[in-house]
């Protein structure tokens, strides 16, 4: 309820039927505000308004003057009294007008230029006075008579008649009472510590609120949608027995490319696609023995020169599979030194990956990726498919597989989600069995399943209110405040 409406409703309840002018006075509002609020209250059924059809008499300027000073004929009659006055002695227009009216009514006679009242009795005099009083009543707004009594004045254009439809009185309805919280009770408004301790509320009713009134909403502080989906993904992995791992984002080409069997002349290594670092520009590979094995594998498979210098170039990692590659090495290295593992080992990582893009409203240069790794005995592609289906199932996404190619896995697969209500599918990531050339696991009768997938894409499939990737990283306050916990 608007505060004016509330003021008026309260005032009307106190006073029973109330006239408009009183009402305005008691609430201290102007006429426009009062009428506006009354109209609203009436629409809600909170008040009953009694209207009156009536005539309203308004004084013309001349009429107003006469109401204040008396009718000219009345004044002239008083002045004449018992005397005679010569016509030539009449000083003002008023006196001349008075003379004409007195004459028309036969109250004076004029002989040889002299005016004299005729004896028409007291009645005539008092009638004149009464007539003058009518104007005064109209002026003060107290006139209650009808139009007939004013017919002369109307003819003389001293009074104008207007028909009006006005509010006579306002009364509160049952609904209005209820809106204020009941008829007779004394009300409890805001609660304070005294009301609680004294229990004074017990004898009163609580003031109620209109639940339909629009208010300004609170905006909860929330986690960022990307971070929320990452937490969800971490929960999904850990619930399936996966342990989280992490690794450097600023990485050597060796771990980002060479250890993943990407040939040194592969286009993916171009400056066009990968961020190369000038500070620090190169860091020598420390794992010499492993590096030599990778070098041999490259030469055998790709028949090209393999240079340590290229492997030592620092880059921003293009995939979190570099983290998996480091762990495959660490674990196999530990096993060769006698470490014992309970197979299968399940690992996952989540982190940023980088593409050398010109950043604009459509393109981002860093995005999140997750990678999974299972090392064990007798692992199969069907185990891989099952694990991935479970992870995506937990996010309500159904996935399918098709063959695909990545240098470091064989067999390789790609998985994609069917977009709800659409024919198109969105590619989510790549997967496969890591090449023996990389893992060197054969002699331990082990193999490894690995996969990598973008995270922003999952969010795009799940939350259709998010239209584009870059808006995820803008952090516009308005956007953050409109997020939903989907």
């Amino acid at each position, binding site marked *: 309820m608007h505060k004016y409406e509330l003021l008026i409703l309260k005032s009307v309840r106190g006073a029973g039927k109330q006239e408009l002018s009183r009402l305005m006075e008691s609430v201290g509002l102007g006429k426009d505000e009062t009428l506006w609020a009354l109209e609203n209250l009436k629409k809600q059924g909170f008040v009953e308004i009694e209207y009156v059809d009536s005539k309203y008499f308004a004084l013309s300027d001349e009429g107003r003057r006469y109401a204040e000073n008396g009718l000219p004929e009345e004044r002239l009659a008083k002045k004449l009294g018992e005397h005679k006055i010569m016509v030539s002695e009449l000083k003002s227009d008023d006196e001349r007008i008075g003379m004409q009216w007195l004459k028309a009514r036969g109250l004076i006679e004029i002989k040889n230029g002299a005016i004299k009242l005729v004896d028409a009795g007291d009645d005539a005099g008092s009638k004149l006075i009464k007539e003058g009083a009518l104007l005064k009543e109209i002026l003060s707004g107290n006139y209650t008579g009808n139009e007939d009594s004013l017919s002369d004045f109307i003819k003389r254009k001293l009074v104008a008649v207007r028909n009006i439809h006005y509010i006579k009185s306002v009364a509160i309805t049952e609904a209005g009472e209820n809106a204020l919280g009941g008829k007779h009770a004394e009300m409890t408004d805001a609660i304070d510590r005294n009301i609680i301790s004294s229990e004074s509320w017990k004898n009163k009713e609580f003031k109620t609120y209109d639940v339909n009134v629009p208010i300004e909403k609170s905006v909860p*502080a*929330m*986690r*960022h949608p990307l*971070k929320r989906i990452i*937490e969800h993904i*971490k929960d999904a992995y*850990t619930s399936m*027995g996966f342990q*989280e791992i*992490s690794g*450097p*984002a*600023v990485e050597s080409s060796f771990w980002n490319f060479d250890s993943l069997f990407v040939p040194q*002349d592969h*286009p993916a290594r171009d*400056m066009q696609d990968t*961020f*190369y*670092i*000038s*500070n*620090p520009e190169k*860091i020598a590979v420390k794992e010499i023995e492993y590096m030599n094995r990778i070098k041999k594998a490259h030469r*055998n498979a790709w*028949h090209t020169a393999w240079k340590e210098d290229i492997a030592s170039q*620092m880059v*921003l990692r293009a995939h979190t599979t570099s983290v998996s590659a480091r762990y495959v090495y660490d674990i196999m290295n530990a096993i060769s030194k006698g470490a014992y593992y*309970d197979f*299968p080992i*399940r690992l996952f990582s989540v982190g*940023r990956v980088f593409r*050398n*893009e010109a*950043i604009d409203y459509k393109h981002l*240069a*860093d995005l999140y990726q997750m990678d999974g790794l299972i090392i064990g005995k007798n*692992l*199969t*592609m*069907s*185990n891989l*498919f*099952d694990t991935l289906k479970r992870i995506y199932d937990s996010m309500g996404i159904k996935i*399918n597989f*098709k*063959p*695909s*190619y990545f240098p470091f896995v*064989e*067999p390789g*697969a790609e998985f994609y989600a069917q977009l709800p209500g659409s024919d198109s599918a969105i590619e989510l990531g790549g997967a496969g*069995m890591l090449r*023996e*050339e990389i893992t060197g696991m054969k002699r331990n009768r082990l193999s490894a399943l690995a996969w990598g997938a973008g995270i922003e894409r999952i969010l795009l499939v799940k939350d259709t209110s998010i239209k584009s990737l870059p808006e995820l*990283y803008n*952090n*516009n*306050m308005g956007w953050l*405040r409109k997020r939903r916990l989907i």
Partner: protein
Amino acid sequence: MPVITFKKKYLYSLLGSGIDDKKLNEQVIKMGFEVESLNEDEVLLEITPNRLDLIDAVGFARSMKNFMHKSKKFSYSIDNPETAVEITVDSSVKKIRPYISGLAAFGVKLTEDSMLNLINFSEKFCETYGRGRKKIAIGMHNLDKMKTQLVYKCDRDMDFVPLGETAPMKYSKVLESNDKGKKYSNLITNGKSCYYPSLSDSEGAIAFIPILNSERTKLTEDTRNMFVDITGTSEYAVNKVADLLAATFFDMGADVRRVKIKYPNKTIDLPELEKRYININLAKAETQIGVDIGFNNVISLANKMGYEAALIGNIIRFRVPEYRLDVIGEQDVIEDIAIGYGYDYINPLSMFYSQQGGVEGQTILNRRAAEAMIGMGFSETASSYLTNEEYNFDKARLRRDRSAITMKNPKTETVTIMRTWILPSLFKSLGMSAHESMPQRIFEVDMAFSVKEGMPAESYRIGAVSIDPKSNFNEAKSYVEGFLDAIGIEHSISSYEHKSFIDGRCAEIRVNGKHIGFFGEIHPEVLKNFGIEEPGIAFEMDLSFK
């Protein structure tokens, strides 16, 4: 992934009856590729970069027909021991483009479509596998317009009539004025020296390698006999590509003949078309894929994928098709068996889950930090790790220093370094939100980067900003202390100077006497630099899990 374009009519004529758009789509996906688009005239296919034999419509049709069991075309060999062309390799090419191979094809019935396919194929092949002609360049010639004795050498700046021209031109002129010359000139320059590798017969050059062929030997629809040269920087690659091309000409119905290559120290006849076998243990393949295939089916699956296969004891011997450059070992063959079997038929098989999973300590700490900040009314943000000196240093009133991880090859000036701290990311976001209602409180727990003693250093940090017309230093302090208490970090606070904050309204946070962060009232100049219109406070500290 390479996208290739085929003339639909030509492709469908190669595939034979029973093919339509729907069927093509289905089969292509099962093979592991995608139909990117399809219209009346053209088919656009996305293939994986390992299967370069499919860039050619003839090769694609061959694999697809095998896949649909419509043909059994597995291996290629040349029986005629005679070589059709002889190429003498001069030692002068050694320093710039040392290797050459080739083949001759007799009785090629070129049509407009098949000629276009050959040209598109060699262009696309040289761009992708050929690494922009550096590793591989292919030239195709009308064999009847040339002599069969050729020399491959680095020439003087000679005249020849390049393809599409009528008058002779010097090599140097080609590099200056011809589009191909300009595009590939870098491949024949080494430092300041420029070389002119050419393939010539007694009448002059038939090719300026790897730039342009001669007008004299160009292909036309009347061409019946062809010579193909393949040059490059890897002997293995040029020889293998000759094998791949041989398969294409065989499938076009030609009689393929070898070419003799006379290197200074050896002579070889190419294409080699060497027989190569990979033995597969079926049980192992079945285990890796996770399906039961059986000896009865595996031969048929091999044929489907283009392999000739034979059972020898309990080992299956796969003959690798000569055109497959990508098959390195056992795992590649197992993948092909899986593709032949069909990924759709590999049923997900649950694994036994016994171990306990868990997240890293850093994740637990980050979660606690986020919970505390959200409890204090701060919304979480996610920002790029990439920035530039202007945002990371200048706008925050800091001096640029050499501690940032710096990009060597950024595409734009917006991304030149990795952020060294979090607050500029938050300031930037708030600057873009000036029209939104106040107060605005945001935080971010994520990584920042620097170089320490020549090594990259990556750490987790927390940054938080509150923009509020009623901001003051005490509010900042109350957030900082409330936050540190909530995540259980004992700390001390002392006064501090930081250029991004107002002097005398800034403090540092110490844990065990060690500086971990700072907070205070943001300097008005910093606010203005980032487009923030109301006052604010901020804190940032290290949050690495130890």
